[in-house]
């Protein structure tokens, strides 16, 4: 059944969207008109330039409200997210103890030139993130966080050495799509070495979605706000499925 939707302001299907952007022109009446015309060109209706301000010589900043015209049939939308059973720290460790009779080995790193460890640390460090323990704290896991600026080769070497069940790869820097290139480089290395099927491969980062990760050849992708137990339960349940 069709389900047409539009952005919602305060009345169903009013289509209201707030936009903010900068135009490389000097502030003035002409700049404001330009903002209005530009948003009209984007196929909006009833464009209202709510705020315009000079933010530098030859640059003007705008806040604009406008009504969007297109409708979307929501029933045709397909998107996936990582499907996993919600389990906590104790349930996950119990499950490993009961089902595996060995520790689960996980190796994580921020690869390439990216120097940010915030993502991988949130998932792996003892402390964890948002009151949710990191994988290093799991008694039934051997979790190794290699930190940042790790080469794909070093990650693979460590993964083989530690007989890793899963690799966690984080990317924070997205300028000029550096993250896509780095994620791809690892996949290419694993395929060249014929080792892709050896590991569960998980991608993470502020601009990572599950769909993007799947498209790049990973098993799952985790975006901002992900807590460690979510990653842990994905790893454990997926490994379990693979065995059965």
């Amino acid at each position, binding site marked *: 059944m069709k389900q047409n939707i539009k952005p919602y302001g305060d009345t169903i299907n009013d289509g209201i969207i707030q936009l903010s952007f900068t135009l490389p022109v000097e502030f003035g009446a002409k700049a404001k008109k330009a903002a209005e015309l530009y948003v009209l060109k984007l196929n909006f209706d009833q464009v209202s330039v709510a705020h315009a301000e000079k933010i*530098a010589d030859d640059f003007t900043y705008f806040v604009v409200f406008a009504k969007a015209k297109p409708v979307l049939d929501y029933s045709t939308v397909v998107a996936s997210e990582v499907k996993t059973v919600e389990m906590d720290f104790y349930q996950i460790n119990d499950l490993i103890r009961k089902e595996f009779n060995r520790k689960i080995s996980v190796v994580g790193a921020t690869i390439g030139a990216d120097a940010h460890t915030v993502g991988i640390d949130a998932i792996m460090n003892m402390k964890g993130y948002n009151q949710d323990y990191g994988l290093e704290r799991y008694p039934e896991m051997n979790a190794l966080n290699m930190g940042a600026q790790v080469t794909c080769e070093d990650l693979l070497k460590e993964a083989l050495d530690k007989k890793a069940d899963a690799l966690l790869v984080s990317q924070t820097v*997205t300028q000029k799509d550096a993250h896509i290139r780095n994620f791809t480089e690892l996949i290419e290395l694993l395929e060249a070495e014929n080792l892709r099927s050896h590991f569960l491969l998980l991608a993470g980062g502020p601009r990572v979605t599950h769909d993007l990760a799947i498209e790049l050849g990973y098993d799952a992708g985790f975006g901002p706000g992900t807590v460690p137990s979510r990653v842990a339960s994905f790893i454990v349940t997926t490994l379990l499925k693979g065995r059965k």
Partner: protein
Amino acid sequence: MATIPLDQNQIERVKAIALEIAESVQEYIVNYSSDSVERTVLRLYGVDGVNEDGTPLPNRVVEKAREAGILEHGISPWFAKAMLISGRDEQVTAELLEQDQVDFSFDKNVTPADIHQKEGELANKAMEVLKATNSAKREKREKTPLPPNPWRYIIVATGNIYEDRTQAKSAVFSGADIIAVIRSTAQSLLDYVPYGPTTEGFGGTYATQANFRIMRDALDEAGLEQGRYIRLVNYSSGLCMAEIAACAAFEDLDMLLNDSMYGILFRDINMKRTFIDQYLSRLICAHADIIINTGEDNYLTTSDAVEAAHTVTASQLINEAMALKAGLPARLMGLGHAFEINPKIENAFLYELAHAQLARQLFPDAPLKYMPPTKYKSTDIFHAHCLDTMFNLASVTTDQGIHLAGILTEANHTPLMQDRFQSLGNINYVFNVAKDLGDEIEFKQDGFIAKRAQTVLDETEAFLNRIREKGLMESITEGGFAGISRPIDGGKGHGGVFAKSSDYSNPVMQLLENNNPNK
């Protein structure tokens, strides 16, 4: 300003322990040098430029000295000798050495006295250059006055120095007092300083002397237009701490990110290398009137900001002690800390005030570097903006020095022009409406904030005592800071550390040590 009642004896005690810790590291530092220290000597002597492959000449000359087996004596006497043999200036002599037209073994009856004299000339000339940057900056600051506290610090990070220039000027227009050009993400691990203007970088722009100059000129221009002096910041961290400090001094930079332990912990750079390099870099900063910015804020991105608060304070005290060893006065110590407590914790803001106020009182004359929230910023930019507002309030209330602007799109991308505008708008608003709040309030004697500050100070004292017993290097090995453990002989750059021979010569370093302009 409102103060928390703290025991002055305890403050003196923790400072004395920190000094002892720094002194034990200093005992090690004096017996060793590194490739990058020797390259810095060459830069201070006037060697610059790259060879045909793009390798900097200071690197090539030091490599040649290492190959010739003479580096342990210091590059200075050998380079002075090469100059006497070539009869040319510093730059041409370096080029001739690189092209093997002069070498270190060739001896045309150059006497030790001649070499000694030449070294003295080179070292004195280097000191003159450092003095010149000092007076150049003083003149500029007289022409365009410095802004009031806290100074608004904004980053630019497009990867292209010319684009950075546009971004920086717009930030100055919106109220920025300090511009930091974020470095390309892997530069800390390069064992050389890149050369020339650059237009390609990842997550930032390469720190090169040419880029420093381009931005300095742009900021001088913007400062004149806006009627206030705009400070320029870069990074003296990684494998080239002292070399970058020299380049920064040449181009009149005002601040450098410079931490005695950051590279060890967060970039896995060898700890001996870092301690040796930071010492010379700070000697240069003391002479060139450059404020160092230390990196304690980073501890809290990996550790919990409440549990690990004392490690921040302890590190500030150690950074202060090491800075004192290098002759830096308090006014050049931008000791770092951060507003990183989980916003879900009840009264998180009171904890933040306690930590910020403690830092203020422990280092009353230092321009404290206060970092905005990053760890708990979500991709909801509107909520992120709220977090920054509270951060701005804590900063102005506790009279912080160097206020790093929180950016609402922190968790999304490197800032857009309009993100900086929003950020500065928020700061300008809060700093104005709460300008004298700190002078109006009093902290309750036995209230939450006072008790919390006391707890952190007590934990700091206990922690410092443990470090003193074990030694700083061993404490780092055991993961005492930021929960990160680094082996003493591990990490990058270890190969570039060497023991000085008994006749090691480095007269410019001696002059830097013995002629502190801040005494």
